[in-house]
């Protein structure tokens, strides 16, 4: 099993990965995830590392039944850094455990390079896991931990030693190879766990919130380290996290999950700029929600009227038909304050100013009664200063507003 590292290293350097285009990602997958008919046509046949098809996972029996995963379908491409993002209890870890083989789906298929692995026990799957608790073997040294998978695969001793040396170098742990795992720090344990999971050259590496036990600075370091390792090894990473910032900075694509369903799959930019649902917009980053009424629609853009009678052009996701009373979503950084209320699309009173160092948040109590936050990047030449209590207007960048499903 496994493709030699040397061959794979070249892969991430390809100019663009086929099928990574925003359109395909943002539009097809969410619909598919929600579809119940289970008919899935892979957009890149043979290019998917993992295909999850109509997977359900129910825990408990009778009245205590809980559907941890509710008919989830998703394709994860080769060499991709794919993140499952969602609040705790959304089913992301369950999905990871199904791919690893620690649990078995109630219904549905999990394909690894086209082969259904759902019924296979974990030790027959060319997939390795980095556990949240690292799960290093306490009675073995760092080197023995890293070599364990290869040893279990029955590799010759010389090959194991060479690979372990290579892995120790990859995670910069050569000096500590003879230490017990209890004698190294948390960050070092993390590296050993990574090296141990990468050593058998899995087709897919699963990472279950691996950075959550590290402090802020170490976490930032490891984020970069993980990206580097993914590029150097060319292995598909499936990363589980509840940290939206981590997901946005590290992933090629993100699947946002909630209550056992995948709500949206897309690039970080897709997810942030074109959230498919209100939950996604709310979970990722800060967002303003404003009520409005749809006046007309044309080519994916709706004209929406605010309570103040001002109108704004707002995009909306494909397959969604907004009518009547809707909620508009506007990111705080896509809006701007103007000191002359007459120049603003909407108007209000400045109720609070919060200084964050890199930027400032202006809290505006709109004339309609809602609260609205405008984020302004601080610079040395900020022309206007505002005072709380001042009447202000708010302008919007083009494409700032979107109408979303509630």
């Amino acid at each position, binding site marked *: 099993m496994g493709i030699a590292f040397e061959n794979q290293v070249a892969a991430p350097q390809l100019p663009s990965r086929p099928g990574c285009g925003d359109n395909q990602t943002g539009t097809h997958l969410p619909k598919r995830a929600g579809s119940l008919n289970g008919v899935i046509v892979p957009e890149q046949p043979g290019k998917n590392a993992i295909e999850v098809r109509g997977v359900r996972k129910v825990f408990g029996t009778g009245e205590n039944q809980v559907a941890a995963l509710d008919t989830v379908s998703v394709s994860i491409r080769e060499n991709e850094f794919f993140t499952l993002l969602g609040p705790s209890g959304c089913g992301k870890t369950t999905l990871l455990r199904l791919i690893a*083989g620690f649990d078995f789906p109630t219904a549905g298929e999990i394909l690894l390079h086209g082969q259904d692995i759902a019924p296979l*026990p974990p030790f027959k799957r060319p*997939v390795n896991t980095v*556990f949240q608790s690292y799960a290093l*073997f306490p009675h073995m040294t760092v080197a023995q931990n890293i070599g364990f998978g290869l040893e*279990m*695969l029955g590799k010759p001793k010389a090959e194991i030693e060479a690979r372990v040396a290579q892995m120790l170098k990859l995670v910069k742990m050569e000096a500590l190879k003879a230490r017990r795992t209890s004698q190294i720090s948390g960050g070092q344990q993390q590296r050993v766990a990574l090296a141990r*999971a990468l050593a058998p050259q899995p087709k897919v590496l699963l990472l279950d919130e691996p950075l959550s036990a590290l402090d802020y600075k170490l976490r930032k370091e490891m984020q970069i380290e993980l990206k580097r390792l993914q590029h150097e090894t060319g292995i598909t990473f499936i990363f589980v996290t509840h940290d939206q910032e981590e997901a946005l900075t590290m992933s090629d694509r993100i699947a946002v999950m909630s209550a056992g369903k995948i709500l949206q799959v897309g690039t970080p930019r897709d997810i942030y700029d074109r959230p498919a649902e209100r939950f996604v917009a709310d979970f990722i980053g800060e967002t303003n929600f404003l009520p409005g009424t749809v006046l007309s629609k044309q080519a994916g853009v709706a004209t929406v009227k605010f309570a103040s009678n001002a109108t704004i052009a707002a995009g909306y996701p494909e397959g969604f038909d907004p009518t009547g009373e809707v909620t508009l979503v506007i990111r705080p950084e896509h809006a701007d304050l103007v000191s002359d209320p007459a120049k603003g699309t909407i108007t209000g009173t400045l109720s609070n100013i919060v200084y964050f160092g890199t930027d400032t948040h202006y809290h505006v109590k709109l004339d309609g009664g809602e609260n609205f936050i405008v984020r302004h990047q601080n610079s040395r030449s900020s022309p206007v200063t505002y005072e709380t209590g001042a009447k202000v207007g708010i302008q919007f960048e083009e494409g700032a507003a979107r109408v979303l499903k509630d």
Partner: protein
Amino acid sequence: MAEPRVMDIKDQPGFRTIAIICLLVLYVPVLILMVFSLNSGSLVTHWEGVTLGWYGTAFLNEEFHAAARNTLIISVTATIVSTICATLAAIGMTRVKPWRGLAAAFMVINLPLMVPEIITAVATLSFFALIAGAFGLNFGIGNLILAHTVFCIPFAYMPIRARLEDMDLTLENAAADLYATPWNAFKRITLPLLVPGIMSGAALAFIVSFDDFTITQLVAGPGQTTLPLYIWNQIRRPMTPEINAISTILLLVSILFVSVSFLIARRRAK
């Protein structure tokens, strides 16, 4: 010092006195027994002087040798067999999907701890008498080994089970994830991590078997005298400090095993 004081039982009036009385009642008789094993006189109640002579007498005593040999054969065999049974039982009850009757099985395994020993002794005796009568079967010292094995199992089971329950199941998942078959995962991960529990269980089983009197007294046939039985037989005759010497040896062996068990348990807690 300004911290508000927490209720401390040591501050209660009389606590110290009661504690000291308890310790004295527990240990003074044992200390007297040990001290008189060094008595140069031949009475266990009248002190004359210091000698190690009674230990010499004991070591030359053929009956003591035979009893010690019997005890070791029974204890060692019972310890090995009961520890293996207890290990298998503990794995079968912690590393499986919950099954109907799991709680009942736990009860059944631990029941011998609660049944009065004399009841177990009488029951075992009647059982062996029954199969001897019905099938003409008598396993000789095997009867004693069998009886000891059975009552040792719950003692060996407890620490092994505790160790298994404390163990992080993710480690076994990680082994399976790294291509270890269930057998390899057990051999390479679970078993090595279980060793302190097994050692601790075996030490307990050994001590329980080594010290047993009631069941042994009823089940033992001629020529199957163990050390506790030998001591019992001796004190029905005029006693010499030789019996103190033998008792002290027995006590020291017990202390050794309990200490080993304790040290292993403490090391695993780290």
